[in-house]
């Protein structure tokens, strides 16, 4: 089959960027969306042009690296599917697909379809963990956890951090992502000790990063490749409200957002020096 691809090309974060049209003639219905881009890129390179930059790694829907909008829908038309697992049989011969990156202030553009999602790492850094150091653990069966509780925690823990929820949300809110971690840890006894502080810190970090507010639209969960349920946001709000009421003792601590690419020390050596 043949496809027309209208792809967002942007050299770097300061470039304005624009859509460029491409035709791909040798599309096999069995190939994935990313393999289709591979085929396009091979032809571009052979023509001496720069290939389309896109993020990808595991190509089996679990690492969360890949993701872009296809005709305005995060990860494309199939439910619960990342673009690396989206096969071309879901499109029609001759169809036009518009590919563009996640667009959100908190995900600055890097190049073409690649954006900077370090704000997600900082939300976790603000409190998305259980404060237990290596060696502190009692036997795993010491605290029984009901199957339903563990299953529930796992439903939330399945988040892959791809950012589709933010891209799909008209407010560019990261409530689903943050709520998923708060719900995962808050449902388990191990995570309940820090429940209040976690909610306060992670929510504060979301705000500092410039993510929008949740207005219960639900686009996030519809776009989520792991089908994280909307109730994680309710859980987050509940935890946050409860923690806020008794917050006189709690000090909210957040992390400084960073947009530059730190490189360690400045290199004194001229790498082009011969000797």
């Amino acid at each position, binding site marked *: 089959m043949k496809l027309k691809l209208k792809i967002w090309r942007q050299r770097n974060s300061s470039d304005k960027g624009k859509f460029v049209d491409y035709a791909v003639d040798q599309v096999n219905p069995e190939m994935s969306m990313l393999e289709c881009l591979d085929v396009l890129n091979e032809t571009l390179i052979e023509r001496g042009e720069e290939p389309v930059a896109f993020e990808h790694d595991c*190509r089996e829907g679990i690492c969360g690296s890949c993701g872009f909008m296809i005709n305005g829908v995060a990860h494309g038309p199939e439910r619960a599917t990342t673009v690396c697992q989206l096969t071309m049989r879901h499109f029609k011969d001759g169809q036009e697909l518009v590919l563009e990156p996640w667009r959100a202030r908190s995900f600055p553009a890097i190049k073409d379809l690649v954006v900077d999602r370090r704000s997600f*790492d900082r939300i976790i850094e603000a409190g998305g963990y259980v404060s237990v150091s290596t060696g502190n653990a009692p036997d*795993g069966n010491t605290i029984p956890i009901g199957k339903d509780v563990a299953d529930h925690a796992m439903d939330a823990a399945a988040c892959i951090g791809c950012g589709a929820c933010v891209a799909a949300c008209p407010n560019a809110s990261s409530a689903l992502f943050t709520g998923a971690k708060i719900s995962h840890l808050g449902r388990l006894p191990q995570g309940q000790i820090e429940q209040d502080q976690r909610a306060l810190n992670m929510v504060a970090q979301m705000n500092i990063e410039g993510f929008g507010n949740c207005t219960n639209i639900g686009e996030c969960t519809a776009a989520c490749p792991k089908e994280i349920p909307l109730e994680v946001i309710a859980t987050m709000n509940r935890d946050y409200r409860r923690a806020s009421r008794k917050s006189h003792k709690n000090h909210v601590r957040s992390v400084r957002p960073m947009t530059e690419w730190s490189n360690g020390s400045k290199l004194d050596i001229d790498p082009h020096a011969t000797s």
Partner: protein
Amino acid sequence: MTLDARIPSGSIDKAWEKTLFDMKLVNPANKRKHTILVIGSGLAGASAAASLGELGYNVRCFCFQDSPRRAHSIAAQGGINAAKNYQNDGDSVYRLFYDTVKGGDFRSREANVYRLAENSVKIIDQCVAQGVPFAREYGGSLANRSFGGALVSRTFYARGQTGQQLLLGAYQALERQIRAGKIKMFPRTEILDIIVIDGQARGLVTRNLITGDLSVHMGDAVVMATGGYGNVYYLSTNAKGSNATAIWRAYKRGALFANPCYTQIHPTCIPVSGDYQSKLTLMSESLRNDGRIWVPKAKGDKRPPNQIPPEDRDYYLERRYPAFGNLVPRDVASRNAKNVCDEGRGVGETGLGVYLDFKDAISRLGEQTIRERYGNLFDMYQRITDEDPYKVPMRIYPAIHYTMGGLWVDYYLQSTIPGLFVAGEANFSDHGANRLGASALMQGLSDGYFIIPYTVGDYLAKAKPGKVDESHPAVREAVVAVQQNIDRLLSIKGKRTVDSFHRELGKIVWEYCGMSRTAQGLEKAIGEIRALREEFWQNVTVPGSGKDLNQSLEKAGRVADFFELAELMCIDARHRNESCGGHFREEYQTAEGEAQRDDEHFSYVAAWGYTGPDSAPALNKEPLEFEYVHPSQRSYK
């Protein structure tokens, strides 16, 4: 070179305890004066970095992905082994040790494996405490399942996403230390060389993948946890970015590379569907617990599977291995699949596939139970193939999945370069010639949480690495060499893409150094690899510049290293005139077609040393001694 593995003397069950006591400790107040460079943020890297940070060291952690949470450990599905004996089925540390040595076809180091089995129980505890949502029984206790190659139920799991949950646990511990200011994280950063000063690993040359800037990071010790090299084959179950560049640069700087030919082929992957294929998708081996593997008895039987009556089916694993049946170890399962396909009995359009059939399990247990056990795997299969495995048997075929070989390390996980430690799949130590299912996660976390934090401290206390800085000539030399390599790749401006070379390299290695090997084939492969490498350096085209995000340039550097590593794999495979585990030489098999080891001549670790760009690598041998598990012909009949 004489290889001293520093294996402690005395009884194996006290060896690690004794080693820990004999270690020299770093004064807590001095720990913050030491900087440790950790490369990779998968299970081994993230757990090591977090644990070192908790102890008070300054840690710098590097990964090429945009976030440490993306490391390929995340894709492990089935589970993690631990000798908890929660199921009361006779498991013990000793049994896990025994199974692992035997499963590795008697090519691993006993002391390391014993320690791995000991640590396994602590790993589960640690992960539970971190909030990893392991599967539970209704009564609230941890659930287990059995896994390929084992007769006890010792595998812990979190649905089909065990690797993801364990990695997120380690990632969260890492983030906690980043917040505490003990770890500085460098995502989107590639390691392009290691700096060795006065014989000690002291620094790294890195490239920021967004800006293209080169940097130097100096430290007192380096921990490499960069994973395996399965992407040599182009088509593998590894992530697209998984690469061998860091370990290969370490090899060229003097670290020995052990058993490069020990590669593992996973028996249950989705078959290749076309030339555009970019990677292979693995289906968890746990599927073999309930699925039955078969092919038609007759060659070229093209009937749809549900029209082939039972008497025309060959359940070849159950037939040949009545004791283990569909649960034989990975190498045995893979080779048998290849054999039946070579006989012309393979299924699917390409004829490179066998059926994995759940019909009997569904009629025995009901569709609901199967859905609970494997629902997400079945969904994934259906998404890729557009076939419903509840109705039609899955088609599977073996694919490269894991590399047992890696940088040589001693009992302390230190390579032959003092101060360079290697953890997880990147080292060679624990799995011998074949890894058992659900043991990779165990090894990564054992190394990272429970070995590296101690052994690195012992090194710092004993070696007392002094102060060095970037003005050292070795630093300049490394930076200039890295830049020259980048400039060279960009300046060739030939006609072929990096991927086209990589694909061709992969085909050669898969053909001659894959599931079965011959001396003649390997000889041929070495010639073809060299010729292709030469063409690569004359005819590759890398568009763009080195000054910004350039994914073609990243790939080109990695593929350049794969060429050299592929040759070493073939040299190692050709030298090992025996069959063991994943290394099957057609010349060395029993009358029944099973792998035939030669313990008299090959009971050693082959550790290769770099001797220069165009000279043959030097072979060093670490003899293997088996005091506890006596080598026998593996039998799964």
